[in-house]
């Protein structure tokens, strides 16, 4: 965990501490600046008001809620009056024009601070609405995807219960139930991942050995019916990557599953690894039919999913790829789709790696 990460974590826990710190630092720096400027021009310091209003804007921008900006406005007005206007080192409003000047300064400061805060709140509101829209799209897609296998499960199990069937028929129906249920498990695991990604506090990044995660993902993928053989590169170095192991495993399982579901004619999956400029690139490739170039731009952002025809084809992974994308982005990496050297599709994602570990 780097120092900036730690500072960010501390501030997330201590909102008040952060706001006080911003307030004190800004006002301190402004006072310093004003003192510096007053040494050039030892008159009645006409710049002081402007400089302190700027400080109020800064405080309002970087703190949460109205109160800190208003506090800064009052302190600023007081400082200007006390330190930087005649009589120095005294609080006075008895000179001509002073009451008006300081009242105006106070009002301007308070107005700016409230305006800044309101703009911030509106931005957050817009962001929330957008996220809400994304969630409801996602929910609609999922609900639609869930209905088909559930119908099949209910149908098959009630047939087994209510009708006289041969043993072979029963086994066939049970097999169908199992396949549908396994598919539902995969969808729910993706949903769990989505909830974890959308709440950043739930992502627990730990240093993990990349090959262990790849190996675990391959093992889990091979439990699925009709999985394909997977061949992976092994890097000479032992690489530790800060990641949430379960989520990255989910990404790889989704990418493998995507090959089994969509890459027609694929016979094998390759994983290629390379390390460049502090990033590790993991590429999942196949020798199937590939992705039509016209689909490439939209295949990762979920619009492809919402635009597809309302087919009841349950092999459609639906949310798989967009889950991968959000997981990778939460890890400060990047997911891209392209053509594979093996003839099919390639999905490559990158993850930042902090340090090199070599075999001693």
């Amino acid at each position: 965990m780097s120092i900036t990460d730690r500072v960010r974590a501390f501030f997330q826990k201590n909102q008040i501490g952060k706001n006080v710190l911003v307030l004190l630092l800004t006002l301190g720096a402004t006072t310093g600046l004003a003192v510096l400027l007053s040494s050039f021009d030892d008159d009645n310091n006409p710049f002081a008001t402007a400089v302190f209003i700027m400080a109020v804007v800064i405080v309002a921008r970087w703190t949460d809620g109205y109160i800190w900006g208003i506090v800064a406005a009052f302190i600023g007005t007081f400082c200007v009056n006390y330190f930087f206007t005649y009589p120095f080192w005294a609080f006075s409003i008895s000179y001509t024009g002073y009451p008006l000047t300081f009242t105006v300064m106070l009002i301007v400061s308070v107005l700016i601070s409230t305006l800044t805060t309101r703009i911030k709140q509106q931005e957050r509101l817009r962001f929330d609405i957008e996220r809400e829209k994304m969630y409801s799209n996602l929910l609609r897609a999922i609900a639609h995807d869930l209905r088909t296998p559930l119908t099949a499960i209910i149908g098959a199990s009630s047939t087994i219960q209510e009708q006289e069937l041969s043993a072979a028929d029963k086994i066939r129906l049970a097999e169908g139930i199992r396949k549908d249920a396994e598919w539902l498990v995969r969808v729910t695991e993706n949903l769990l991942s989505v909830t974890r990604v959308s709440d950043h506090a739930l992502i627990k990044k730990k240093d993990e050995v990349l090959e262990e995660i790849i190996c675990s993902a391959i093992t889990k993928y091979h439990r699925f019916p009709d999985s394909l053989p997977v061949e992976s590169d092994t890097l000479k170095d032992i690489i530790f990557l800060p990641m949430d192991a379960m989520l990255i495993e989910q990404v790889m399982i989704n990418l493998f599953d995507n090959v089994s579901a969509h890459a027609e004619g694929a016979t094998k999956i390759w994983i290629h690894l390379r390390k460049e400029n502090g990033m590790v690139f993991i590429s999942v490739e196949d020798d199937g039919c590939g992705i039509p170039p016209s689909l490439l731009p939209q295949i990762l952002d979920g619009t492809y999913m919402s635009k597809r025809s309302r087919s009841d084809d349950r092999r459609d992974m639906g949310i798989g790829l967009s889950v991968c994308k959000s997981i990778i982005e939460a890890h400060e990496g990047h997911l891209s789709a392209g053509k594979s050297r093996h003839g099919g599709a390639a999905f490559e994602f990158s993850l930042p790696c902090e340090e090199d570990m070599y075999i001693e």
Partner: protein
Amino acid sequence: MNKVLQKILIIEDDPGILNYLKTTVDAAGYETVTATNGRSAIHMITSHCPDCILLDLGLPDMDGIDIITSVRKWTLTPIIVISARNSEENKALALDSGADDYITKPFGSVELLARIRTALRHSLTAAENKEIGIDGCYRVGELEIDYKKLRVCVCGEDVHLTPNEFRIIALLGKHPGRVLTYKYMLRELWGPSAPMDNKILRVHMASIRRKIEKDPTNPQYIFTEVGVGYRIAENTQETDN
């Protein structure tokens, strides 16, 4: 029918899963007793003395870990923990508290029965690996750990492990088929002043994998349980699955 059946206690609060577990275990020729909450579970363990316990960690009235610790005070009955995905810490904690194995939901009947057979077999041979006692070697597939000559061979060839690497694989070989947690391995290998960070262990492990596995991402001998620990392949595994 006067054959004495081995008795399995199933502790699970969800009626659907309990029904599935009971049916599967019954059909495999074991006697089953069930408990749906922690208090009745403790009562059942003391009154029935089961040969193996299946324990769901998420019970309504008690933490599953507490059941493990209280059972471990007086018996070594194998405990298999049933846990949900995404709870690696819980799995490691359960193993460190004395559970023998865990199985992650959702699981199939083949996997479940294999775990039960393994657990029952371990309770017969105790913790130590019986084979090592006979000729000082543990063999699985083409892998051979020679505890007398302190070396490891694959396909009859010495793989030249460093002393630390040998100690790690030797420890795993003493508990075939069982997951050893990072914490347990660090304590066994580096003593009470073991480093808290398991990085060093994992670097050694990666190096061992490169030496003994033909394809390190598709291992035959040493398996990684992500977030929990490591497990070495067991001799009878092929016949189990």
